[in-house]
């Protein structure tokens, strides 16, 4: 036990005395959360739009006022000629143009149909679609208000409720994904170089010629990173709740418990890599290339797994981050309990056991 404690303390010294390690360990999570939370968002806000109002009647002005008050649009200016629209698009200043034809009010009142023309810059199709949807819903709102005074014969009004994320904020899906990604990167990379470093510097040679057991080496390598990663989780959660205004709907002890399980999964994977490789460089490359890309692709936080071809869906099952992503979304955002996630928890536990046993089995008790 005393041996174990002194080994753990030694590992702490290694981490705390290396500025680069510290920076990666604690700087990266904060950076990533800030970047993903604030900078990289798929919401489209404050898009510039021009309006050509040829009607200039009460109805058209009401509609323009609604668009102007929306946070999605910022009216660049109002213009009068078709040619100016083309120029504005070519200059790249605007994303969208709206044309209200002359006699808008008249048509609406007497013919019960009026037309507006929406022109969107579709060089980025996603933004164009999103923006036209916004315009549609604004026009729809406007129309239904007008209809309140007139009773139309048949009307179906779909009432949509966005469960768990009523404002459709992107941080709701970002934060769980980023948590899965960061913990994976930090835990796997840090432990992956920790054992292989002892091989490279030759200290493993001395450790081997000592009464120290391989199991203890593995365990004492994992403990410091488990503690440090736990601090990381707390930081990420605090930042998500206070900075990104993400609510934690489920039980916090459960959330922490599953996070610890995931950390241990990542640590055992890192140790497995460390035991299998011979140089720090190789360990680093494998844990970066081999973990980063699959985690981003297959964890389901950037690309929905349901949309992937079947072979890729099958592959995604071996990515631990996928399961953690499901668990954390269920607990944190949907507020569900252990009963809802026991299957995913078992899968992660199984993976951990596999990596630990495989690592222990391939631990070399000799040099060659």
């Amino acid at each position, binding site marked *: 036990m005393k041996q174990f404690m002194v080994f753990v303390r*030694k590992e702490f010294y290694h981490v705390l005395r290396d500025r680069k390690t510290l920076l990666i360990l604690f700087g990266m999570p904060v950076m990533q959360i800030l970047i993903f939370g604030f900078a990289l968002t798929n919401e489209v806000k404050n898009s510039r739009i021009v309006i050509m109002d040829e009607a200039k009647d009460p109805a058209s002005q009401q509609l323009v006022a609604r668009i102007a008050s929306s946070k999605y649009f910022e009216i660049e200016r109002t213009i009068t000629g078709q040619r100016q629209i083309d120029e504005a698009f070519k200059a790249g200043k605007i994303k969208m143009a709206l044309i209200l034809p002359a006699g808008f009010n008249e048509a609406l009142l007497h013919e019960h149909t009026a037309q507006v023309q929406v022109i969107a810059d579709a060089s980025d199709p996603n933004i164009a679609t999103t923006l036209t949807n916004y315009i549609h819903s604004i026009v729809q709102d406007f129309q239904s208000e007008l209809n309140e005074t007139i009773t139309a014969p048949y009307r179906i009004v779909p009432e949509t409720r966005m469960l768990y994320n009523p404002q459709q904020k992107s941080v709701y899906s970002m934060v769980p994904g980023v948590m899965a990604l960061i913990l994976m990167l930090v835990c796997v990379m840090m432990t992956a170089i920790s054992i292989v470093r002892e091989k490279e510097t030759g200290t493993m040679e001395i450790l081997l010629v*000592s009464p120290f057991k391989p199991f203890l080496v593995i365990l004492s390598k994992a403990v410091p990173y488990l503690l440090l990663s736990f601090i990381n989780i707390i930081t990420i959660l605090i930042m998500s709740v206070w900075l990104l205004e993400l609510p934690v709907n489920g039980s916090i002890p459960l959330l922490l418990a599953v996070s610890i399980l995931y950390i241990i999964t990542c640590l055992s994977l890192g140790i497995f890599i460390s035991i299998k490789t011979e140089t720090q460089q190789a360990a680093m490359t494998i844990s970066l290339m081999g973990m980063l890309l699959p985690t981003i692709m297959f964890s389901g936080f950037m690309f929905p797994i349901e949309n992937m071809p079947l072979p890729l869906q099958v592959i995604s099952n071996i990515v631990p981050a996928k399961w953690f992503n499901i668990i954390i979304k269920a607990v944190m955002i949907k507020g569900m309990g252990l009963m809802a996630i026991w299957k995913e928890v078992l899968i992660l536990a199984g993976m951990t056991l596999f990596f630990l046993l495989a690592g222990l089995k391939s631990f070399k008790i000799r040099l060659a």
Partner: protein
Amino acid sequence: MFSVTVNDITKVYGKEKLVAVDRVSFSVNKGELFGLIGPDGAGKTSIFRMLTTLLLPDSGSATVNGYDIVKDYRLIRNTVGYMPGKFSLYQDLTVEENLHFFATVFGTGIQENYQLIKDIYVQIEPFKNRRAGKLSGGMKQKLALCCALIHKPTVLFLDEPTTGVDPVSRKEFWEMLKRLKAQGISIVVSTPYMDEADLCDRIALIQAGKILSVETPENIKAGYGDTLFAVKSANMYRLLETLKNYDKALSSYAFGEYAHVSLNDNKIHAGDIKQFLAGRNIQEAEVIPAAVTIEDCFIKFLKN
């Protein structure tokens, strides 16, 4: 009673079947300071790694403290001290932390065996809060020796402990080894420096994985048999070239600032060599009888 016995061990590396250690046998008595002497690449490190259970021999067998190096590797690891050729302590830990770590790993404390390392440790104690990576070469070796000794091993394996260490520290290091020997610890040490061979009780001369001779340094020198002269002149290069054509000489080679000439005819005197050199236009050559060193013996072994 033997501390180490080695019977016909062989180590072959890789697909090219490179023979690093070729049917080597020797034994080390209890409390003996035993030297493995040979140039780089002779197989010294491979032998050390097999004896410290880090490598498996391809054939042959060996024991340390009576334990088999393959079967009883755990028991050997508990009782030996090992200092690898490359400095292998934690560079980011201080002197004291390193020592404390290795003491604890071996299930002991610094206090218990302080007596054993005291002579060495007092020299590095002023720097005990300095990180190991920032020590000088000699200091590093002293710290590594302390760490290898802290659990009071019965056999100490030191792989080239003096390589890359300045002459003064080298001398000190060997004096430390003598004191350790006096405490009853068997020491197996390897070195590429022939002049250090004389400091061992017994030595094994090794070259290309083969043992040339296992004897006390005195007996090896006594068994040299040939007459040896040291020759010096202003132009050493010309001297060496000329000596190659001296048909009475068995061999001639550079040796420090002199050239050594060996002959198996004890009727030839210094004057004869001078005469030969004078005949080849080397006038003021200094020729004196030379004492045989281990290096001369090593060169002779290589020739045969």
